[in-house]
C-alpha cells in the first residue's frame, strides 16, 4: 500500500502542491492527469522519493521502479548491462528473458544509441519490470512516439502490469491511455495554495 499525504510543496516562496492525499493499493493502477505545468511531474518526483523536500509524509515500499518520459538509460553500457547493473542480483538468463518479454530478444549486446527510440522505451520498461517492483511510477511513458508504436507500447505495458501486478502511478495527458491502463484516475486542478486533487 502506498500512502501519500502532502500538506504542501513549495519552490522557494511559490506553492506548487497544496494539501492532497491518496492511497494506491497493491496491484492497483492509478492515472494522474491535469493541465501542463500544474505539478504532475513534481508530485511524481515526491512520490518516487527523488525530491525529499516537502511538508507531509509518503509511505512507499522499498522495491520500486520508474519509467521516465525519456528512456534514461546508461548509453555507455549495452542493453543487457542496463538491466543487470541496475538490478545487481539479476541473473543473466532472467535479464535476457526480460529483454525478450519486451521484444528485444537478441539485442542484449547493443548500446542504447544503436536502438530506435521505441526500442529504448521498451528497454526502459524491461528495466522497470526486471526487478519485479512492488511500486511502479511512470511519467508520460508513451509521449513523442508515433501512434502505432505508442499503441504497441501501451499494450505491452498492460501485459506487464497484468503479469507483475505492481501498484502503479502514472502521469498521462491522454484519456485513452488512462482508460486502458488505470483502475482509477486522479486529476490535479489549481487550488489556492498549489495544485490539489479535483
Amino acid at each position: 500500500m502506498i500512502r501519500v499525504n502532502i500538506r504542501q510543496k513549495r519552490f522557494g516562496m511559490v506553492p506548487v502542491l497544496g494539501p492532497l492525499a491518496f492511497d494506491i493499493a497493491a496491484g492497483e493502477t492509478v492515472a494522474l492527469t491535469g493541465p501542463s505545468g500544474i505539478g504532475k511531474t513534481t508530485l511524481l518526483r515526491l512520490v518516487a522519493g527523488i525530491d525529499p523536500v516537502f511538508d507531509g509524509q509518503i509511505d512507499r515500499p522499498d522495491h520500486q521502479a520508474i519509467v521516465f518520459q525519456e528512456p534514461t538509460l546508461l548509453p555507455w553500457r549495452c542493453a543487457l548491462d542496463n538491466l543487470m547493473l541496475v538490478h545487481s542480483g539479476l541473473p543473466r538468463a532472467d535479464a535476457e528473458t526480460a529483454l525478450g518479454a519486451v521484444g528485444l530478444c537478441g539485442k542484449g549486446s547493443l548500446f542504447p544509441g544503436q536502438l530506435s527510440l521505441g526500442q529504448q522505451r521498451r528497454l526502459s520498461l524491461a528495466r522497470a519490470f526486471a526487478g519485479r517492483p512492488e511500486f511502479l511510477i511512470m511519467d508520460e511513458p508513451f509521449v513523442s512516439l508515433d501512434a502505432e508504436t505508442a499503441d504497441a507500447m501501451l499494450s505491452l505495458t498492460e501485459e506487464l502490469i497484468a503479469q507483475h501486478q505492481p501498484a502503479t502511478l502514472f502521469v498521462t495527458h491522454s484519456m485513452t491511455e488512462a482508460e486502458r491502463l488505470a483502475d482509477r484516475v486522479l486529476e490535479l486542478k489549481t487550488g489556492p495554495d498549489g495544485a490539489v486533487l479535483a
Partner: protein
Amino acid sequence: MRDTQITPLLSIACLVVLWIVAAFLTADPQILPQPWDLLPRFRQELASGDLQRNLGVTLLRVMWAFALAMVLGSVIGLSMGRSVAINRWLDPWLVIFLNLPALVLIVLCYLWIGLTEAAAITAVTLNKIPNVATILREGGRALNPDLDAMAQVYRLPWRTRLRHVILPQLAPFIAAAARSGLSLIWKIVLVVEFLGRSSGVGFQIHLYFQLFDVAMVLVYAFSFIAVMLLVEWLVLQPWERQVRSWRTA
C-alpha cells in the same frame, strides 16, 4: 598507411626540416646545432646512464604530481559543480589560484617547506589543481539529473553509482583535464627542478644552460618530450578510445 598515420609523421618531418633550415641559416652549432649533431651527445648520455636516471626521476615527480592533482582537483571540481554553496565559497579561491603565477607558488613552497622532494611535488600539484577543478566543475554541472534520479529510485549502491553512472559522464572532462594536465605538469616540474632540485631533466637543463651547451639542453628536452609522447600514445589515447567506444559503436 592511412592518412591519419601519414599526416602526423609528415607534420613532424616538416618541423625537422624547419629546424635544419634554421640551423643552416644560423650557421653556429653553439646557438642551434643540426639535429644529427645531437645524436653523439645523446648516445654519450645514454651510455653513461645519466639520461635514463634523470628522465626516471622527472617522470616519477610528474606521476606523483599528476595523480595528486587529478584526485584532489576532481574532488574539488566535482563538489563545486554539484553544490551551489560550495561553489560560492570556493570560486574566489579558484580564480586567485588560477591567476597565481606558477613561479610564485614554486618559490613559496621552497621557502616554506624547504628545498625538498615534498616541496617540489606540492608546488607542482598546487599549480595544477585549479586547472583540473575548473574542468571537472563543468563536468559536475553537466551531469544528467535524470540519470541521478534513476539511480536514486533504483537505489543503486554508491559504488555502482560512481562507477557506472557518474564517472562515465565525467570521462570526457577527466580526459581533457588529464591531457592538458600532463603537458602542463611536466613543464612545471622542469621549472621546479631548475630552481631547487639536484636531479631530473630540469636540473640537467639548468646545468647545461650554465655551460651554454645548447645541444645538451636539446637532448634532454627532446628525450623528455619523447617520453611524454609515449605516455600520450600508449596510455592516454588508448584509454580515451576505450571510454568513448560506445559513442562509435
